[in-house]
């Protein structure tokens, strides 16, 4: 993947497949500590300790079209290439948390990329799932919670509606621009 936002899109799809209906995506860019941390936490079906043991191994997968699942493996490589690592915690019937860390100014640390597009892709394609997005850059924070948006829109309006999608994308872009340097 060329951007970290694409890895995030990929890993959140794992949460969706695990039937999560509430997914937390947190990004913390700490330029002072030279550290980038990404956390994806869900309330999906979780994994037992046996499956969890080698979960980042591409051959450890629940997929049926292939015997290989590359998502976690690729994300871990991206983290390790940038002097960081990836950790997965999970509890069956409770949920899973994937945490990746990167040395912020590492020459091989991929750019964050377009988080607004990743979020909008997730939100518009998964109307029944709630996402809570929190992005911190040094001391500045942007939070986006689909539950608030849904409350405002009411039950009848689908978040996949093109006008809503456009509004979401621009709203998130603006929010992120405000906290950026």
């Amino acid at each position, binding site marked *: *993947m060329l951007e970290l936002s*694409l890895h995030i899109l990929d890993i959140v799809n794992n949460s969706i497949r695990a039937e999560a209906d509430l997914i937390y995506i947190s990004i913390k860019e700490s330029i002072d500590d030279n550290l980038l941390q990404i956390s994806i936490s869900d309330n999906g079906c979780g994994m037992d300790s046996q499956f969890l043991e080698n979960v980042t191994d591409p051959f450890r997968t629940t997929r049926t079209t292939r015997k290989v699942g590359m998502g976690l493996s690729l994300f871990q490589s991206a983290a390790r290439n940038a002097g960081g690592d990836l950790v997965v915690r999970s509890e069956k019937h409770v949920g899973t948390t994937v945490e990746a860390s990167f040395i912020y100014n590492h020459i091989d640390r991929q750019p964050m990329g377009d988080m607004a597009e990743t979020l909008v892709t997730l939100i518009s394609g998964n109307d029944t799932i709630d996402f809570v997005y929190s992005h911190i850059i040094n001391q500045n924070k942007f939070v986006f919670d689909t539950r608030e*948006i849904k409350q405002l829109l009411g039950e009848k309006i689908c978040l*996949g509606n*093109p*006008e809503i999608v*456009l509004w979401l994308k621009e709203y998130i872009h603006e929010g992120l621009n405000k906290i950026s340097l």
Partner: protein
Amino acid sequence: MKSLAELEAIKNKIKNQVEVRKDRDENTIRIIVGMATCGIASGARPVLSALVNEVGARGLLHVTVAQTGCIGLCRLEPIVEVITPGKEKVTYVKMTEEKARRIIAEHIVNGNIVTEYTIGAIKE
């Protein structure tokens, strides 16, 4: 500046449109984009985005755009499937944003399949 007030306005505008869609299910054209790791890595996100934007811009109320997992033809990703009721499914492969826009214009709006982008056109 985007504001929640603006979202409220969009909501009121859409509320009136919702009634129009009641019978869209039998006539709905479904566009499905592969969004597994293979798809994302090869550029499916902008393809999906282009499709959603075009459908929205052209006001195609009888068209839905959805995401799916691995279709099983990873080397040909990004893949877009077009399912029109009563017709054979069309599978477009190696998609790009420009191809997506062309498919909306020629296939979805005018009914002409863009054969050169389909899986049938791929030489082994």
